[in-house]
């Protein structure tokens, strides 16, 4: 895959800024730009996190083109990749690292999985929404949280419940 330069992406993202956009939309765009800049830089920090970052980049490369599944899957956009990178960066250091995946609608997933009914999946949408679904024993929990640069508290609590006990 040919990666566009940081400048190209920054210009593209900047060009999409139009007067009257909501603060939320502007924030998501800023987060995406920061994430894209990270994509262009050498990977650092701890070994496990470095491996996770590399896995995320590799997944993005596999799913960055439309029809990556041979069944009309939507491409994972740079916006989604950048938000995913920011979410990975936002995970507290003592938290287990997730396994990554991609859905055919072009969203990346973070999964914390302990067993069939101790599992949490979070999808990252292009507009910065985190759609989550968890099975915790007999109970289930699902919904949407906005990503504002920090891991939303309800999702943090669900991760804790996956690994609790």
């Amino acid at each position, binding site marked *: 895959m040919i990666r566009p330069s940081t400048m190209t992406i920054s210009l593209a993202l900047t060009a999409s800024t139009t007067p009257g956009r909501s603060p939320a939309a502007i924030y998501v765009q800023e987060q995406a730009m920061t994430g894209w800049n990270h994509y262009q830089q050498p990977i650092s920090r701890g070994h496990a996190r470095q491996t996770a970052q590399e896995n995320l980049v590799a997944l993005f490369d596999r799913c960055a083109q439309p029809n990556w599944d041979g069944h009309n899957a939507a491409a994972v956009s740079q916006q989604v990749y950048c938000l995913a990178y920011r979410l990975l960066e936002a995970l507290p250091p003592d938290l287990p690292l997730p396994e990554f*995946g991609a859905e055919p*609608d072009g969203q990346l*997933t973070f999964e914390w*999985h302990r067993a069939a009914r101790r599992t949490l999946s979070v999808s990252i949408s292009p507009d910065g929404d985190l759609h989550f679904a968890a099975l915790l024993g007999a109970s289930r929990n699902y919904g949407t949280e906005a990503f504002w640069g920090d891991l939303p508290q309800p999702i943090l609590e669900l991760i804790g419940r996956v690994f609790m006990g």
Partner: protein
Amino acid sequence: MSLLAPPAQVGDEEPLARYVFSADHVRKTDQSVKPDAFIPHPHLDLSVTRHLGLAEDQIWAHGKVVSAQRQRPLIGRADVTAATFRREGLQPSSAPVTTNAHHVNVVGWPVGKPAQKIIAQEVAARARYLPLPAV
């Protein structure tokens, strides 16, 4: 492959195969299938294949036909009973196609992504994943 078309009604206990073409849809930790493999797209339906009347090698043969159509390597399949889908409010509906008389569309998916995800979670939790056997 079987030349006999199965009955139109999909029985509750019938196993249905969801073919898997992405290694990212299988957990590295325990080789189970992820919910990502059951998210419907581009339409609100999910393609699966009935086992009914098929030998094991015939079930895999159908997957290889789909693999050729998609031009993606078949890596495994997730078997789920029709009752599992029905429990989540979905309807497995027989939908034979030229290349697969055992084809089923699972319809009735909600539009909202979180609702789709929790259904996909429940289905994946009850699925049995089988990697493609080595030749």
